[in-house]
Each structure stands twice: as C-alpha cells, then as structure tokens.
C-alpha cells in the first residue's frame, strides 16, 4: 500500500524528472560521441568540470545562463583534448577516456582549492528556480511533475528533440552516423572523418558538462567533491540501454531516475526499517543492469565504435 502511495504522489514523479535531467544531458552528449564512433569515457570527469565551472562562474558574479555557457565551454575544452588524442592521434579510446576523467576531476579539485583556499564549507549560489508553466502545471500529478521544473530541465528535454532531429533529419546527422558506422564510406565521399568526429566529441562533451552544471546550479546550490558520483558511468550504460537512439535513451534515463527516487522513498517506509540502507542505494544500479541485459540484447552498436580512422592506410 505504501508503495502504491509513493507511485501516485506528484512529488515522486517530480523527483523522477529532476533526477533524470542531468542524466539526460550527459546521455545525449555521450550518444553523439558514440554515434560518431568515439567512446567518451571522459564523461565522468567532464561532468565534474561542468558542475564546478558553472557554479564558480555564478559565484564570481555572472548570471545563471552565462554560468551554463561557461560550463559548456569548459566541457568542450576537455572534449577537444579527448578528441585530439583519440581522433587525430588515434589512441586507445579507453585509456584516453579514463585519463581525461582523472585529469578533469583532479584539475577541478585543484582549481577549487586555488579559488577557495580557506573555505571549509563550500559557498552557496542562488540556483535556477522552478518555473511553473501556466495551465500545464495545474494538471494533476503530471503537472507538478513535468511543468513545475527549473528551466534547465526543460532544456534537457529540448536537447533530446534537437539531437534526434539533427541525427535523423539533417545531412550533418547522416554524415555523423555514417562516420560511426563506416568511416571509409564517409571518407570516400570526401568528407573529413576527423572533422566530424572531433565536432561530435566536442559538442557531446559540452552537453556532458551542462549535465554536471545541472547538479550545482539546479539540483543543489553548491559544489562539493564526489557530487557527480558515478552518474557519468550510468550515462554510458544508458546509451547502450537506449540502443544509441535519443528517444529510448531518454526513457532509460527516466527509468533509472524512477528507481532512484523510489528507493529513497522506500527507505522511509516500514519495509525500510529493518534493512541496511546500502541495499536501497544499490537498487537502481541492480535494476539498471537487469534492464540493460533485457533491453540491449538486439541493440545494434555503431559498427565503427572505438575504431580509430587513419586516412590512406591499407
């Protein structure tokens, strides 16, 4: 009965959408990279960079949207680093990605200490406020869940539409997908595989950073270490879960968020009394792995994912 109560409450669904938002940004970012043939394991670190850069920008006096832009640009810089190493030099995407994550994370902490040497508890900023859309937000349950969110959440859903449109409806998207399927086919048409993949990695990394910025600028109002907490890795799984399609990846993000919101509430019920809370924290991950197994059986991986492209090689 308590479970039913949880599932029928507007606050539960609002939490689902809120928790999903950063995942949606980062998942779309990763999806763009992978569709072009580059696995971007820098995602975790780039989210940390975004979380810090956006927050720091606002803390030093810019407005919130400029902060988002600063976060995106910072993420793109690390994306460019990833791209130069994996696309231009053709190095191992696994090693480079993990390296970028470590480098991005540690340089963020370094920058944090440089900027705030004497602070024990991180300063707060004024985050994005929820923006209730007129009329729509009055719909029962759905209204407060979907239409009383912060502007960044609306942006996240908008990004899914844009990514889907670009990938499937524009010549650029076609070229990008082809670069991830068979770079030789792209090169044979005289397009630059390097350019396309670099572009995808940089743009995708920008989105990942905005996902990170959501955490400091919308979900919480402050930056602290470990705040990204594996969300980047979840997004990698969500891309697979979504079979490299934006719409399905969006569903995956919502599903994961639902598990997460559900376990928090479950802990406070009678069921949660006797059980260690770590068990509940585990729940969304365990269920995600299960869902991944079920869903991604027949997913078609971009055929050239993780395959470096070198021009003029036999």
């Amino acid at each position, binding site marked *: 009965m308590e479970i039913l109560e949880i599932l029928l409450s507007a606050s539960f669904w609002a939490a689902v959408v809120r928790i999903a938002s950063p995942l949606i940004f980062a998942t779309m970012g990763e999806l763009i990279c992978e569709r072009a043939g580059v696995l971007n394991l820098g995602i975790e670190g780039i989210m940390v960079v975004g979380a810090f850069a956006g927050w720091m920008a606002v803390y030093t006096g810019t407005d919130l949207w400029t902060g988002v832009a600063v976060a995106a640009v910072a993420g793109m810089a690390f994306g460019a680093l990833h791209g130069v190493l994996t696309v231009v030099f053709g190095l191992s995407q696994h090693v480079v990605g993990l390296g970028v994550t470590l480098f991005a994370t540690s340089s963020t902490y370094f920058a944090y200490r440089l900027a705030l040497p004497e602070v024990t508890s991180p300063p707060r900023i004024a985050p994005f406020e929820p923006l209730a859309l007129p009329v729509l937000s009055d719909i029962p349950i759905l209204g407060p869940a979907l239409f009383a969110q912060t502007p960044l959440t609306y942006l996240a859903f908008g990004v899914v539409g844009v990514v889907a449109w670009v990938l499937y409806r524009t010549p650029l998207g076609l*070229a990008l997908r082809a670069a991830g399927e068979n770079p030789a086919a792209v090169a044979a048409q005289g397009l630059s595989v390097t350019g396309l993949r670099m572009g995808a990695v940089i743009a995708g990394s920008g989105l990942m950073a905005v996902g990170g910025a959501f955490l400091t600028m919308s979900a919480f109002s402050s930056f602290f270490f470990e705040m990204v907490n594996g969300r980047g890795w979840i997004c990698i799984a969500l891309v697979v879960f979504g079979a490299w399609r934006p719409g399905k990846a969006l569903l995956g993000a919502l599903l994961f968020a639902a598990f997460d919101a559900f376990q928090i509430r479950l802990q406070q019920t009678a069921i949660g009394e006797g059980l260690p809370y770590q068990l509940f924290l585990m729940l969304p991950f365990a269920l995600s792995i299960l869902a991944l197994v079920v869903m991604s059986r027949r997913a078609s991986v971009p055929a050239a994912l993780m395959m470096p492209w070198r021009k003029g090689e036999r």
Partner: protein
Amino acid sequence: MAPATAAPVVLRLEGITKRFGTLTANDAVSLSLGAGEVVALLGENGAGKTTLMNILFGHYSADEGVVEVGGLPLPPGAPRAAIAAGVGMVHQHFTLAENLSVVDNILIGTEPLWRLRAGRGAARARIAALSRDFGLAVDPEAVVASLSVGERQRVEILKALYRDARILVLDEPTAVLTPQEAEALFATLRRMVAQGLSVIFISHKLHEVMALASRVVVLRQGRIAGEVAVADTTPAALAALMVGAAPAPAQIAPAPAGPARLRLRGVTTPNEGARPGLRGIDLTLAGGQITGLAGVSGNGQGAIAALISGLARPEAGSIEIDGREAGRGWSARAALDAGIARIPEDRHGTGSIADLSLTENAILERFTRPPFSRRGWLDRGAARRFAEGLIARHDVRCPGPDARIRLLSGGNMQKLILGRALSGDPGVILANQPVRGLDVGAIGFVHAELLAARARGAAILLISEDLDEIMGLADVIHVISAGRLSPGFARGTKTAAELGVWMAGGGFADAA
C-alpha cells in the same frame, strides 16, 4: 605510346609513382581514358591496380606524377576534388554503412552539412530515375545490411551516378557476383557508355575484359606491361602479358583412389537459420585424390567444412580419420593434431589476423608446439626462419616477415596460408574456395600445390562454386544440394549440365 583514341581524352594519369615502405606499388604509370570508352586495367593481385585507382580518387597521394581530369590537374589526396571533377569509384570492398538505408548511404556527403533538413523527397525521385535509366533495381528504403552483394554494388554505382560521375572506376566488380549478376552489371555499364560515360574496369578475369573493354592496360609489378586494343589481342596473349609468360595448359591426369583418410558416416547437422543442415551424408576422402564438392553456395558446404576443420561436431553420425572415430573431443585442435590442413574460405576473417605480422600468422596453427614454443616460451628465431622459408618457397610478395599481413594482396595472403597449411605434410587437406578472388598466376600456383599434395598421397576436399575448377581438377565429384550429398562421380563421367541438374536438387532419392 598510347593507341590513338578518336574521342576526347577525359582522364590522364602521367608518371604516377607510389611507394609503401620498400614496396613500389606503382612505378611511373601513365594512362589515358577517352569519353565513352571502357578501359580495362588488368593485372595480377599486387600488380598495383587498386593503388593506382586510389591515387586517382585521392585516397592516396602519389609520390610522383599528376592526375588530370578534363585537362585540369586534380589536387593530390583530395577525394572531394575527384568527386567534383566527376570521378566515381566502386571499391572492391564496398564503402557502405550497413546499418543505414540505401537512401542514407547515397546521400552521405551530397548536401551541405549545415542544413536543417535533408532533401529526402527530391533525392528519392532522383534515385528512382537513375535506377530506371541504368537498370539498377534496388529498394531505396532497405537497410544495406539486408541487401545481397549484387544489390550493394548497385547502391555503390548509384552513389557515383547520383554525384554526376562522368568517369566510373570499378575495382574487380565481378569478384563477388554470380554470373547472372555480372551479366546485369555489364548491361548497366554498356548503357552508361552509350550515354557518354567512361569506365575504368579493374579485373583479372580475361573473358570479362574481352567482353566489355575496348582497350586493355596491363600492369605487372607496378609497371605498365602492355597496352592493347581488345580487337587486336586474345585472352592467351593477355594472360602472357599479366604473368610474363604463357601459362601451361591445364590437362591433369586423374589419379586412382588410395586408402580412405577421412570418412563422414550418416552425418547430420542442425539447420542454421535459412541454411539447411546436413541430412545424413556419407563422404569418403581417399588418399592421393582430389574430391570435388560442387554446388551453389549455402547448400551445406559450410557445414561440411566446419565439421572437417573441427569447428563443429555432428548432431548424429560419425567422423573417422584413418579408420579411427573422432569422438566427443572433436575440436579444431584435434583436427590439426589429426593432420588435417585447412585453407579457409574467408582468408581475411578466419584465415589470418590482419594486424599480426606474417611471421605470427605463419605459426598461427602451431605456436603452442615445438619448435615454436619451448617450455612455454615463444622461439621467435624459429618462427621467423619458418616464415622466411614460406615466403621464399611460395613467392609471397611482401615487405618482409615482420610486416602486418593486412598489407598483402589477396593472392599473396593466400600463398602464405597455403604454405602454412601444407608445411606439415598433412594427410587431409580441406580447400574451401581456395582460389576465389585470385588472379591467373596465383590460381595456377594454388592448383599446382594441391596437385603436388595429391601426388604425395594426401586426401583433398576441394569445395568450389566454380564448376570449371572442380571439373578440371577433381578426381571424384560430389554435388551438394540442400544438405544432401550426391554419390561420387568419377571425373569425365558427368557433363556440366548433368551436374547442374544435381545442383538444382534433381537426381536425389527424395527429389520431387
């Protein structure tokens, strides 16, 4: 130097030289092409045909020489410039993205990238018109992965035509086609030529060259070995130009059956999707003979090859080697230990590992045994000596034993695989499509090696879709159709037409 052509010259290659490391793939090659002309570029594998065309198309930059289209030089290494100048290329290995639709594949790169919508509607209409005009039937909405090889080639040609190609380069277009598909392709090409397009046609099949081209340029070891009008030459003369000497006529005496080396008894295998499994077949491979397995591809040849090479176990029935039954432990390792040599059908996929060196590929079947492995350590010296021996004995043209095998042409790769398979003096040899895609010289080499092994007493199973090859080489011929095996026919007792009836399923006891 070049025979005068009446039509204006649309393409000129002048003094093209290209080196890969120590290998000179093209050495001062010059070539011209007139409007509405079909020039065949003929040569053995590794003669430098594909390299030359990749230079024309801008995939490689030439070390020396110029490419001129319509009198204007093309910038080197720029495929976009080649496309803009009206050069279209159909690569031997198709450059299609398999998970995308036909329309998507054709559209890649044809529109400015920064547009909000792809012009699908107009594109579809144009593709339909081109399909109709040139007889290139293909469903534009189909995903490429679902298309047959012949259909994929049509998509490649459509791609070139969609970009207004005036010069079409086809790299061994018939290597992957059935005879019927090849005929349809030739009809298409003739239509193109009639409309003023020019074609460069790379091949090593002499009869195709004679049927289609007006002029032939022969490459040998990176140099032009000759240039003749088709009207003034014969297949034999062309073959001589290609390999440098006239090949010996193939007249092979049949050999008597020796002791049975390998026997399949009542073997049944499960169906694989649409492909039928084997239905209780009996097959005996006798020593000192070549047993030919004829049939249309996909009728169970793969299942027999998998059984003999140890990649599969029979569902029912047994495999016997030299009278001993191979039990439940039958595996690829057991097959090797039993002295079965394998020449796999797919030399790139299962026959070799592209990014390993020739040395490593040469010892692939034996690296866990002496002399290559001593107390768990790889003896690199022994491996290298073995590889060098193979390279020398089998005339494998390569930069050296340390080169990655992907740098080799198909023929040279096959020579190495053949050498590897035959070096242990095996009792049973499984030769699955051993000459597919090879040129005249390499085919002769492979056949000579198989005949030499026959003379040494080996039992050879030759699986081929080329009936001429089977009828010319095999002492006993079986036909496989829908998982059923015909009785063995001695060479010369059945005509091609009679075997064709069996291939179509006639003659079997349960035939309708």
